[in-house]
């Protein structure tokens, strides 16, 4: 099937304004009759729930965390982009649009990216009005810094805690609506099924993580803002509870998963310490403003202390390979370059899987106090984890799974192919193409939440009658029974291995065969290994304790079981995409000097996969991508 993204036509500069004028509206006094379920309270979900509440809709918001303030958006360190052009360095909405399309390796929809760029400036204004304490100059004006993939300084930040401050802004706006009575929060609650009636999303089934009770909630629309899926790799920078479960439940009910093979492996993470590692920690990309990446030129120097490696014997590989962007090359490129050096036997640290990120030149240039002011908390975090002082010796970094560009397929309205099911933020696939630029995730989350969904959902709700289907409908009972029976199954297997041991094994397959460099062979092998491991899981997993009351093993078992099914669609997507683009690198498709080779003739489309059931191959649907404003070109940062 050929999918229609329902983008507005005509000049892109007016596309969003034109759409908003033409959309249907819900009368202010009618809004309170509509109930919207928001799943997830990160930047997209928190901002969306707060804004929909302000508009007068009845909103119920759900999160698995114990508070709406804790979603993993909170961990974003570096910043948020906006095209303010405060520094007169040539920025504009058009340039942000251009950088994002190019940064995404020409695999995103133009109209969606234009809208994102257009509202980016509103986001900064909004956050300042909420009391978000962005960094300031001595003049009292807002400060900016640079991020990868852009040659302008457009990133706003709050020390190394930008995500935290933006999320708290959204959480506070949400709290205000709780007090106003428009939003009801359900913390410690996990969505375990989507209820679809006659092809339309009408509610969800959830598990109360404190009592273990399975509950139904009806809504006139369901919005998923449930984040990304890179915990499929087991070790990633995501929080422990991040999963694909909510999105996957939608897939089981017919929603399409788009471009799952576009995953971001972030270049600046702290290397793994050993087998007991439970997750990886990211160091903000902003560090590459002042840190220089290098490895020794000679493999025999790798074990030597840094002080004994002469300047001439150091290979500043990003500056060498990409002179115009240098250390600020985009993430996919910087990650692959780091892997290349390590594969060449010139990595540093344990297992030689690491590269240096060196601040000495910047400390010499501006002094340690300035570096400390810019990144102090990151240096502290690095020292706590590694026991090394980043001011005195270079940091060691290595790429790690970080972000999912792929996600549920949505049209321009952020609505999936299931009417009434909307998807926001990282959980959808819409704007980052095959690679996301730094400081753009926060921008997308807040854009979708504050400025997109409040408009587009109205257009849908205006066309339906509110409250027609409630928990009384038989579909809710059936859904609860299915959820219950799966939980019983986990408990009754009584096997010998913990859930975590299966998750680690799945992660290993994914990292080695579906990781930074993929081939037909590795992907074929993964597609055999994953179902085998999945079958073992269903025969041998051990979940102790009761389904009543709190039991973290039931939560984990459900998430890992969903990762197994999702991982197969992921690998199938990577296998079918016979090109390299952005975060998807097929070793068969590269230039002589190791750069990605795109195939626009055959693969200039979004791949949306329809799940067909356990053990069956998913079906591919395509949405062709048109580039009418930015010419398809080889993406070069040289």
């Amino acid at each position: 099937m050929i999918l229609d993204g329902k983008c507005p036509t005509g000049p892109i500069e007016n596309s969003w304004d034109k759409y908003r004028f033409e959309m249907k509206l819900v009368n202010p006094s009618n809004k309170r009759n509509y109930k919207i379920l928001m799943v997830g309270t990160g930047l997209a979900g928190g901002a969306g729930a707060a804004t929909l509440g302000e508009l007068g809709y009845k909103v119920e918001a759900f999160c698995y965390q114990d508070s709406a303030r804790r979603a993993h958006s909170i961990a974003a360190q570096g910043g948020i982009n906006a095209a303010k052009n405060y520094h007169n360095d040539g920025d504009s909405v058009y340039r942000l649009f251009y950088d994002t399309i190019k940064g995404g390796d020409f695999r995103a929809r133009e109209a969606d990216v234009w809208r994102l760029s257009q509202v980016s400036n509103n986001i900064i204004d909004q956050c300042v009005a909420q009391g978000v304490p962005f960094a300031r100059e001595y003049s009292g004006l807002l400060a900016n810094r640079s991020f990868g993939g852009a040659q302008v300084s457009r990133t706003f930040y709050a020390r190394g805690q930008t995500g935290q401050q933006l999320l708290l802004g959204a959480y506070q706006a949400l709290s205000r609506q709780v007090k106003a009575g428009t939003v009801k929060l359900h913390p410690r609650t996990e969505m375990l099924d989507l209820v679809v009636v006659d092809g339309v999303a009408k509610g969800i089934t959830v598990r109360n993580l404190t009592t273990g009770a399975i509950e139904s909630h009806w809504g006139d629309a369901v919005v998923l803002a449930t984040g990304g899926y890179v915990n499929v790799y087991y070790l990633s920078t995501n929080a422990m509870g991040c999963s694909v479960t909510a999105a996957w439940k939608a897939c089981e009910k017919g929603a399409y998963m788009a471009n799952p093979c576009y995953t971001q492996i972030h270049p600046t993470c702290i290397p793994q310490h050993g087998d007991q590692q439970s997750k990886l920690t990211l160091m903000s990309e902003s560090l590459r403003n002042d840190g220089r990446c290098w490895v020794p030129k000679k493999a025999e120097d790798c074990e030597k202390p840094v002080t004994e490696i002469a300047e001439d014997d150091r290979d500043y590989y990003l500056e060498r390979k990409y002179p115009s962007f240098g250390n600020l090359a985009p993430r996919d490129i910087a990650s692959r370059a780091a892997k290349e050096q390590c594969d060449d036997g010139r990595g540093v640290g344990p297992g030689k899987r690491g590269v240096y990120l060196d601040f000495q030149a910047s400390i010499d240039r501006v002094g340690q106090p300035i570096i400390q002011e810019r990144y102090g908390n990151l240096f502290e975090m690095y020292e706590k984890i590694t026991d090394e002082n980043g001011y005195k010796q270079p940091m060691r970094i290595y790429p790690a799974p970080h972000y999912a560009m792929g996600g549920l397929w949505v049209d321009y309205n952020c609505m999936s192919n299931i009417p009434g099911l909307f998807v926001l933020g990282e959980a959808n696939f819409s704007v980052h193409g095959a690679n996301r630029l730094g400081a753009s995730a926060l921008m997308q989350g807040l854009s979708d939440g504050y400025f997109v969904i409040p408009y587009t959902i109205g257009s849908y709700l205006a066309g339906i009658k509110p409250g027609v289907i409630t928990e009384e409908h038989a579909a809710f009972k059936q859904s609860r029974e299915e959820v219950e029976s799966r939980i019983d199954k986990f408990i009754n297997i009584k096997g010998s291995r913990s859930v975590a041991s299966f998750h680690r094994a799945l992660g290993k397959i994914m990292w080695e065969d579906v990781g930074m460099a993929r081939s037909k062979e590795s992907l074929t092998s993964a597609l055999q290994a994953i179902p085998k491991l999945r079958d073992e899981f269903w025969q041998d997993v051990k979940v102790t304790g009761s389904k009543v009351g709190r039991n973290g093993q039931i939560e984990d078992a459900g998430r890992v079981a969903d990762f197994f099914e999702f991982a197969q669609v992921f690998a199938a997507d990577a296998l079918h995409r016979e090109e390299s683009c952005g975060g998807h690198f097929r070793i068969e498709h590269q230039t002589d000097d190791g750069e990605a080779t795109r195939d626009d003739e055959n693969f200039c489309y979004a791949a949306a996969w329809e799940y067909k059931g356990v053990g069956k191959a998913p079906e591919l649907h395509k949405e062709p991508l048109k580039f009418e404003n930015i010419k398809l070109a080889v993406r070069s940062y040289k």
Partner: protein
Amino acid sequence: MDLTLYVWRQEGPDAKGKLEQYEAKDVSPDSSFLEMMDIVNEDLITSGIDPIELDNDCREGICGTCGCVINGIPHGPQKETTTCQLHMRQFQDGDSITIEPWRAKAFPVIKDLVVDRSALDNIIQSGGYTSAYTGELIGEANNTLIPKPIAEYSMDAAACIGCGACVAACPNGSAMLFTSAKVAQLAVLPQGAVEAAERVEEMTEAMLNAGFGNCSNHYECEAACPQGISVKFIAKANREYIKAQAK
């Protein structure tokens, strides 16, 4: 390294709890405290015992989900460090470690080391925000200048991660450090100053209604805070409160 743990086990909110002894074997000094707990839990699961329930999520020290009292100190011995960022190199081979939940009237135990901190959310919901509705013409951000020292002061307060260690550390079970940090962050900014008086009154009332005690200047909160939030914000909030009362 090998360690002996004494861990608080409690079936549910109304059950009686007690300390149980467990052994943690072959722990790498580079592992985090929670990775050490993972190893213990993995052993418990394979031997058919229910694992120790504890809240944690980001494991980067920012989400504020994790936290237990380690050898009598909320978040353990390392200064300005959350439980998840505490690493085993802070302990010696052969050490005994006592692990308990946050203990405060306002934080009922859910299970083992997991407590209910929704009282903190109630405080924010009472008024811990600016009443800025979402809108495109809310005002160009740079039209309101904010002196750098004010922005820095505000950020120092805003850094609170809402973990509740301050409450667990306080002999009165007070949430004054948490409450005052939000009061102070917003009160000094032009955007937040407008509602400062109502905010401090409502938040203080909500704090007391939620079962938290008041502040009697022990400063245990600041010592336990993983973000190093200063008690100077409590002084600021008290000042704001008196100003509001005088209005």
